């Protein structure tokens, strides 16, 4: 009897305890400032709870106090890996509210498409690179960064800024592109496929990379839809939902491109899908370059678009016009609009409720990183701690966007 008691005591002594670990917000693979509360039994994950908000800046509230055109730079800081796409989502929503979405000159639309697709490449490159470094492949990361650098150089050429571009404005784009820029873009279109093959050699066929990602964090198409997945993460589960194709905006209906889909919806499919998407983006860029029309780069509506900077120095009327634009902006008719684009991370939607003044009454952003992140607990259950890193990287959240 006493022996049994002793054994029971011992078992209690030896029983393992659940450990709660705070992964982040200061953690090398927290992808910014994600605080992931992991409940673990040894290395097994019992629960993963994302705790967000460390980068909350009240972007939506800020918008209510800014003129419509003043808010564009704030969108740069949403998904700071692809400022161009965010610009596009916002200006398209305002244009829709103004009712001028059909009047945007073709050249502006083409330039928008080119830079937005470049932003998609930059975002996917960094996504894959950061993922690789979380899995320990530092070299793949630096290779990806090298090509992303080319994208950023292109952004610098066209907008003067590398990451926070603010290139687009309501009614068009801010600066025209010259032949030098187009040549550089062509170089990029030519070079990137070779480099993608290089990553293929480093990662796709790599046994360790496959073992770390295949069948990890698999999500069925039905679950993916129910969780509100969009973008590459949804398509990796086999749902061909790409609003560039299904509800075309801008001039995407003029281009010929495929929507790659995955099969299993696991991390490896999400990786392959991003690789395939970059190639499709390059196809779009190439077609846009080939059929680049001439013409103005912004609508000819003086209320919305100020005169060019060099025209205001020697012309009083232009100076007044410019002053009027920057100080009081333009009014947007009463009503509500929702407009969305296919961002690199998923559908980026902008909802604007206007009360007829120069500032939005309410602005709501539908950000893919936030929506995608809620699946963390569902996918991480019963996996190992190292898998959580793979799953998080494969969802590719950016916390500027998630925390807004």
């Amino acid at each position, binding site marked *: 009897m006493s022996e049994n008691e002793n054994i029971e005591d011992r078992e209690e002594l030896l029983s393992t305890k659940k*450990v709660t*670990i705070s*992964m982040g917000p200061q*953690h*090398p*693979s927290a992808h910014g400032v994600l605080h992931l509360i992991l409940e673990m039994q040894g*290395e097994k994950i019992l629960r993963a709870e994302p705790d967000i908000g460390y980068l909350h800046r009240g972007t939506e509230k800020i918008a209510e106090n800014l003129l419509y055109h003043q808010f564009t730079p704030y969108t740069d800081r949403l998904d700071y890996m692809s400022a161009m796409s965010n610009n596009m989502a916002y200006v398209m929503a305002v244009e829709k509210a103004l009712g001028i979405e059909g009047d945007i000159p073709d050249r502006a639309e083409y330039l928008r498409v080119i830079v937005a697709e470049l932003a998609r490449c930059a975002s996917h490159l960094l996504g894959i690179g950061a993922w*690789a*470094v*979380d*899995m*320990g*492949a*530092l*070299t*793949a990361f*630096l*290779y990806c960064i*090298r090509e992303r650098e080319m994208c950023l150089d292109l952004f610098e050429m066209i907008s003067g800024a590398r990451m926070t571009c603010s290139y687009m404005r309501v009614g068009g784009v801010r600066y025209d592109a010259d032949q030098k820029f187009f040549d550089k873009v062509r170089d990029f279109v030519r070079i990137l496929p070779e480099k993608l093959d290089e990553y293929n050699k*480093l*990662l796709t066929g*790599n046994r*360790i*990379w496959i*073992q*770390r990602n295949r069948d990890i964090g698999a999500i069925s198409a039905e679950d993916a839809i129910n969780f509100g997945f969009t973008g590459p993460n949804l398509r990796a589960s086999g749902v061909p939902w790409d609003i560039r194709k299904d509800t075309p905006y801008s001039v995407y209906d003029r281009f010929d491109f495929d929507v790659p889909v995955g099969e299993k919806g696991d991390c490896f499919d999400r990786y392959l899908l991003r690789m395939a998407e970059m190639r499709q983006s390059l196809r779009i860029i190439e077609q846009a370059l080939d059929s680049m029309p001439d013409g103005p780069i912004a609508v000819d509506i003086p209320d919305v678009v100020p005169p060019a900077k060099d025209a205001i120095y020697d012309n009083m009327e232009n100076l007044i016009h410019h002053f009027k634009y920057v100080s009081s902006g333009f009014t947007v008719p009463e009503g509500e609009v929702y407009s969305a684009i296919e961002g690199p991370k998923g559908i980026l939607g902008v909802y604007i409720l206007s009360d007829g003044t120069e500032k939005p009454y309410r602005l709501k952003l539908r950000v893919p990183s936030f929506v995608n992140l809620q699946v963390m607990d569902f996918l991480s259950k019963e996996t*190992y*701690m*190292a*898998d*959580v*890193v793979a799953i998080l990287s494969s969802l590719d959240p950016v916390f500027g966007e998630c925390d807004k």
Partner: protein
Amino acid sequence: MTELTNILPSMATVLQVIMIAVKCVIIAGIVMNLPIILVWLERKVAGHIQQRPGPMRIGPHGLLQSVADGIKLIFKEDIIPSKADKIVFIIAPVIALIPAMTVFVTIPFGDSIMIPYINQEVTLYIADFNVAILFILAVGGISVYGFMLGGWASNSKYALLGSIRAAAQMISYEVAFSFAAIGVVMMTNSLSLVDIVHAQDGWFTNWNILYLPVGPVWFCIFFVAALAELNRIPFDMSEDEGSLAAGYQVEYSGMKFSLFALAEYSAMVSISVLCVIFFFGGWNAPIPGIPIVPPVLWLIGKTFVFIYFFMVIRFTLPRYRYDQLMTIGWKVLIPLSLVMILITGLMRILL
């Protein structure tokens, strides 16, 4: 007077002791300072693999970079977490370092040379144990205590997970590592490293790597197990910065942190030397008739090839997951080495 001479050791013995002391100091000096070069080399290799120059600022081609880093680490604030087990926390890096250095006692860098003026023959190793392999395995196994205690004493969950991983990984791979050493012993009929090298004298066809068909397989087992023993990518579970930040050394800073790094680099050097001694003929030239290059240089050259190889691997491969690592250890390497022992044994008996 005669009594005194009986008590006093003879001149030869005194000389012998002095020789050993001098050799110890020289080897300790080399091993302690080698990481300075190796860190620079590793960063240069990383840089060139990743198409960037690597360290370039301090000294020609950044040669003095690791000296600068060392000085910085010495002067850095030495933080001990308030809830840490202070004594264990302090001695853990030392426990990790000492075994990694002690291994060099048995390593032969060459056979022996004559020193001209004192007409004394000097062996190029500190000691030729007849159980050198056992000594290396035993002493090398102790260093895991450093990683374990360091992680435990830090009183941090990340460090604890790191040290659990380190312990499990090292114990698992110690088995495969020892089996590979047994393979070498079976191929060369000796536990002494000097005899192991002498068994591979002559042409490069005598090297253990070419002891067909088992030699290459033994080498692969040894090399993979060594990678795991070294805690390097693809097996660096215990300091997996992807999930554990820095693993067992997450709370260490300053000189204690660099002692861990020193231990790792010393281990890398000793494992590389062992690779050469076990499988690539030690200090033997591939073709016997090359007298111009002294044997020591052959050993150093071959060792650096392996060190370079370890570095290239680190910057090429991603890392395995903890359970996958265990699977490789227990389900692949150990059964494979058991089969290889059988085959090698049969070869020894029948051939």
